[in-house]
């Protein structure tokens, strides 16, 4: 499939979804409006809201804050996840001891922790970053942990017989071998970083997209809510593209899959 066809298909999907959305919010089906506008707004309103935000420029400040929070959460969370994942995988005893606690921590509802984050990190961006980090960390951690354990035994033995010490094994064997696991988790966690930031703002903030969404929600301005979410999603795609670029660069060595 060429790039052009692909783009065309993608645009078609968007068009169809938007058309259905518009139709179901305005035209009754069997005497009932399937998507009540009170909850779903409609694409035209949402679009005009987005246009207004961008043309008036109010959005930039909020967007910048949210993006910055997301990126910080993503970077800090994934770096921590990678480090701890490696550490656990290489220290099976430590891992065995802490395993249940890690899993317990992962099950804590982050929303409930918000006041504690506010206590520790204040009401500025850092409490939102912390919320995002608690989501990203676990996703990356579990994958890296598993990825390191999946190293081919032969290749690992070869590294050891070549005289690699723990640090060198890490760099030349575990790290490249766990890369595809890591990237898989990074793709998931890009979204979660943003979710964390927005939920953080939603729970308490003075600016950011989450704040905008909350304001809109408070006055039942669904178009505003959806517009906020759209802008968000669009920017996630951008961050994800950056991740994909890095991935391509680091994984050049993989055989390209044969066409079937």
């Amino acid at each position, binding site marked *: 499939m060429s790039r052009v066809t692909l783009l065309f298909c993608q645009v078609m999907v968007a068009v169809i979804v938007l058309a259905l959305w518009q139709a179901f919010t305005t035209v009754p089906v069997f005497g009932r409006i399937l998507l009540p506008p009170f909850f779903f707004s409609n694409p035209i309103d949402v679009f005009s809201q987005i246009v207004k935000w961008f043309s008036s420029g109010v959005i930039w400040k909020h967007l910048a804050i949210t993006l910055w929070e997301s990126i910080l959460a993503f970077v800090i969370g994934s770096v921590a996840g990678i480090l701890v994942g490696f550490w656990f995988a290489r220290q099976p005893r430590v891992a065995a001891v802490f395993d249940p606690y890690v899993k317990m921590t992962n099950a804590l509802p982050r929303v409930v922790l918000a006041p504690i984050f506010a206590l520790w990190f204040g009401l500025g961006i850092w409490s939102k970053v912390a919320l995002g980090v608690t989501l990203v960390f676990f996703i990356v951690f579990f994958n890296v942990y598993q990825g390191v354990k999946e190293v081919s035994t032969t290749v690992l033995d070869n590294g050891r*017989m070549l005289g690699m010490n723990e640090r060198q094994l890490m760099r030349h064997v575990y790290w490249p*071998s766990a890369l595809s696991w890591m990237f898989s988790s990074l793709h998931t966690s890009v979204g979660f970083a943003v979710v964390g930031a927005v939920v953080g703002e939603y729970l308490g903030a003075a600016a950011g997209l989450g704040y905008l969404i909350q304001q809109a929600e408070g006055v039942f301005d669904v178009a505003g809510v959806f517009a906020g979410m759209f802008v968000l999603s669009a920017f996630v795609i951008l961050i994800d593209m950056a991740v994909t670029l890095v991935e391509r660069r680091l994984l050049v060595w993989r055989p390209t899959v044969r066409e079937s």
Partner: protein
Amino acid sequence: MVDKAKPTAVALEDATVAFRLADSRIFTAVEKARLAVAHGEFVAIVGPTGCGKSTLLNVAAGLLKPAAGSVRIFDQPLAGLNRDAGYLFQADALFPWKTAIDNVAIGLEIKGAPRGKALEQAQAWLTSVGLGAFANRYPHMLSGGQRKRVGLAQVLIRDPKILLMDEPFGPLDAQTRQVMGNLLLELWSADRKAVLFVTHDLEEAIALADRVVIMSAGPGSRIIGDWRVELPRPRDIFEVRLDKQFHELHREIWGVLKEEVMKGYAQSSQRGGAA
């Protein structure tokens, strides 16, 4: 049989290796193997498929702990990995994320050699195994025989005191095999490493080695024969085969080996038998 003057590089003393199977039965692959390789000695191991040759090398490398018996390296009991050994694995063990040249250079880089110099030497090694033109290929872009030769260069570049080689020339054609064999002999005679060389080619074993060791068919495989090859050095692998002594030795060992193989084959093919 070991030359008393030289120190022993590798000594397996009644080493027994057992594996736990999935149904938690114990499978004894090698039983009471006793083998001493002197410093500078070239020992070839020959035996029926599945008898435990690779297992023996793994033990010498420190990758497997024997269930009983001991392993001594240069007269020290082996704890953990054998740091003096270079091991060319039977299976493909190149780093798939490194190009051929990086795969070879890594051996030096680990020791702290500067990258430029490591690459230079790696290129030289690739050239001697006939792959100078393939330096920038990733392993999946190489043929089976090419990968094996990159592996060979990877091990040799480190210049280890003990060489463990598991069918290093398996996927090579006869001609390349001889070239590689001569290369190995040249290196070995330069600074007399201890070599443990597994092969299925008895002629190759005799042509290269100082001693040929035969293992019995598994399970519970033992070392059942040990022949000293008194052919003069330096040898050319091809020419040595024309020697009369070579042929006699070959016939003698082959007689033992053939019988052993047939025994192993009969044993292991019975359902639920040995394994």
